[in-house]
């Protein structure tokens, strides 16, 4: 595979044979996979391809550490180490408040990539989450997009629809459909083709402060079982302890809001379009059906009637809620897997009396499953995907080998895991079988809980209009109801009308 003659032949082979060879490269991995524990798990087809009853804390722990991977070898089988040139990558990387271990891995990836591909110059830009989407849009509109971008799960579809992303054949990367969650693959599909590869997936869970629960006379060991319980608990906590109950988030234009509201919507049998249904068409909306109105009513009850949630919920993103939680002023909320680490960081930064208080909160923190509704238990299926831009969007020829190497590296079991050590899980399911997964499960408290929510994950509708629906229409619906600009029913109907109009223009 490494002599020049072979390489030349390799590149001049027709598509089919090349695909076969690439598949062969990852064959070892797939073969191991097929006979491994996973294959058995994937027998039942559900929303995410895994039967929730077979995917739980015990099975996750059992899977970990059952294989070893040689990333360098796997990568070189796909793209030889003589790949050269410059390749640019935009990524939402660590910020000042990111845990140190994540920063360390970020650095390590840069270094190790250089050892894999000494002739490839990786120009990696760490762009802030708030800015990344705008910059990608302006860049690709102006023909200045990077070669590769790692984008949060909802973002890629608009670029694919506009023809800014290159089609990707999984087999070219030694991968196959079975290695990914169904929802993850859906998020990179447009008109039947794949336009990216999932790098990592995560789902959120529910955290609560056991002390506040106990003080309010509630069972400290278990989270509220249903969303109706959440409303009741919230009220009880506010009345009995004076702290806020549920950490509500209702800001417009903030990604956190739909991530924390849609689980309740889906739990009640509603959807923004029909994404939680078994065979979604993405053409009609269910947001104002009985369940949708009930979910909105819950929000209204908590914010307006009971006043049991922070008054600043209308302008809060989850960020503010974290501060309220760590100071014991909010009792429960939906939380991202990384928030435990964030709380620990805040604890470490506290001094004096506050330290004692923060320590109490952290000691009393517990993670559990998100409450269910009358119809189902659900959570937003989150994550990121790696995409390659087209020559047109890039404003020049993409460095094909370089881009392929970067994408392969980002989606390899080892680095899909390490790049998201504290906040997500490898999308490539082989990552769950590696030794590093075992280590994560030991190091990161509650990881098995958040991971066990994965099968309940529902991806946001994979249509370009999703951003507007999720970031604008849904939050505005919530705000209209909570500020009593409209009644709950009116707000839901208004959202339904807007969504219908938006989709009908497609």
């Amino acid at each position: 595979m490494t002599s020049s003659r072979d390489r030349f032949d390799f590149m001049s082979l027709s598509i089919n044979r090349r695909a076969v060879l690439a598949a062969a490269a990852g064959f070892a991995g797939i073969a191991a996979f097929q006979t491994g524990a996973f294959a058995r798990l994937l027998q039942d087809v559900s929303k995410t391809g895994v039967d929730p009853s077979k995917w739980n804390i015990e099975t996750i722990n059992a899977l970990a550490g059952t294989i070893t991977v040689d990333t360098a070898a796997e990568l070189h089988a796909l793209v030889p180490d003589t790949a050269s040139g410059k390749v640019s990558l935009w990524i939402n990387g660590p910020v000042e408040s990111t845990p140190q271990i994540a920063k360390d891995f970020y650095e390590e990836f840069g270094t190790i990539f250089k050892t894999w591909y000494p002739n490839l110059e990786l120009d990696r830009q760490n762009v802030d989450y708030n800015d990344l989407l705008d910059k990608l849009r302006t860049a690709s509109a102006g023909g200045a997009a990077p070669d590769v971008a790692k984008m949060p799960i909802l973002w890629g579809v608009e670029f694919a629809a506009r023809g800014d992303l290159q089609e990707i054949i999984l087999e070219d990367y030694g991968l196959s459909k079975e290695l990914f969650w169904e929802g993850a693959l859906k998020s990179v599909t447009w008109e039947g083709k794949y336009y990216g590869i999932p790098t990592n997936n995560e789902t959120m869970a529910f955290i609560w402060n056991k002390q506040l629960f106990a003080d309010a006379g509630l069972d400290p060991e278990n989270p509220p079982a249903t969303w109706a319980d959440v409303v009741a608990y919230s009220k009880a906590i506010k009345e009995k302890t004076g702290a806020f109950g549920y950490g509500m988030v209702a800001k417009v234009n903030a990604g956190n809001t739909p991530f924390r509201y849609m689980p309740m919507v889906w739990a009640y049998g509603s959807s923004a379009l029909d994404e939680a249904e078994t065979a979604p068409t993405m053409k009609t909306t269910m947001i104002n059906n009985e369940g949708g109105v009930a979910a909105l009513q819950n929000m209204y009850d908590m914010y307006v009637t009971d006043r049991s949630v922070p008054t600043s919920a209308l302008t809060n993103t989850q960020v503010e809620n974290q501060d309220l939680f760590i100071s014991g002023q909010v009792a429960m909320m939906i939380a991202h897997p990384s928030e435990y680490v964030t709380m620990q960081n805040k604890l470490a930064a506290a001094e004096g009396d506050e330290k004692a208080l923060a320590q109490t909160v952290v000691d009393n923190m517990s993670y559990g499953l998100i409450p269910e509704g009358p119809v189902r238990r659900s959570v937003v299926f989150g994550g990121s995907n790696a995409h390659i831009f087209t020559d047109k969007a890039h404003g020049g020829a993409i460095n094909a080998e370089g881009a392929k190497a970067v994408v392969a590296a980002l989606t390899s079991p080892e680095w899909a895991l390490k790049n998201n050590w504290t906040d997500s899980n490898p999308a490539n399911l082989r990552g769950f079988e590696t030794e590093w997964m075992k280590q994560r499960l030991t190091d990161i408290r509650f990881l098995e809980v958040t991971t066990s929510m994965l099968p309940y994950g529902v991806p946001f509708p994979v249509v370009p209009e999703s951003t507007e629906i999720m970031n604008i229409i849904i939050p505005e619906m919530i705000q209209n109801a909570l500020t009593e600009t409209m009644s709950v029913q009116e707000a839901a109907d208004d959202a339904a009308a807007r969504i219908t109009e938006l989709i009908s223009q497609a």
Partner: protein
Amino acid sequence: MSSTTNASATAKRTYPKRRKPFRPNGWTIAGWAFLILLLIFTIVPMAWMISTSLKTQFASIQQPPDWIPDNPNLKQYRTLLNPNNELGAQFLRYFRNSLWVSTMTTILGLVVAVPAAYAFSRFTFPGKDALFFSVLVRNMFPVVVFLIPLFILMKNLGLIDSQWSLILTYLTFGLPLSIWLLKGFYDNIPPELERAARIDGATRFQAFRLIVMPLSAPGIIATAIYSFIQGWNEYVYARTFLNSEEKMTMPIGLQKFFTENSSNWPGLMAASFIMSVPVVVLFLMLQRYFVQALTEGAVKH
């Protein structure tokens, strides 16, 4: 005074000057009260900014809020200004970049505005009024909508991710005020002065440099200050045109503290403070030129 009698005038000359007794009238008291309230209104946010920056993250969200932090520490400042740690190095780089962009904007802004103002002042030519008006028009178009066409333009010029794209854009922010200000100055400098110099053998340009420019110095300084501050504080375009971490300016740097997943209020306040210091100092040092410029240049007609 002109109606006093001779006697009292003489009397005044022989006695030592007496201070007029301080008789506060209603207006004076109102004025003082207003001033104090205004000072409080102005200072409180800044004081709170500093107070927060000295707290730990945790303490900063305590209710009821403390004015004086229990455990004041300069940790945030030390982190930001320390070139050895990652954040500090980044922050200092933003600082340098902002400095570069603002300075170049200022210099180039002057290079462009001075001749233009001179022409508007001294010459008559067809379309002069229309052109003058069009300079004012610049400010009237919404900043945000220009983002995409300007981005495409900068890309065609090869300036994306270059600070020159910002410098070019910022030039136009200050042009209207600069040209207007300087024109006012030049209007007040009699052309006879230049003519006299030219009769003495100076070229037009020498006359300009040796006579007009020194007389309009306050105007030039005012223009410089204004351009500098505009460049220093601008956010929207900087965010759009710059990609690389190494090139970014301070307003974007502030964002780093307030992301989708976590916040650091004390750090944000400390960074805001540090970011404000240079422009505040600059403006304070040179504000009297600004006032002088407005007085002489723009306000007199």
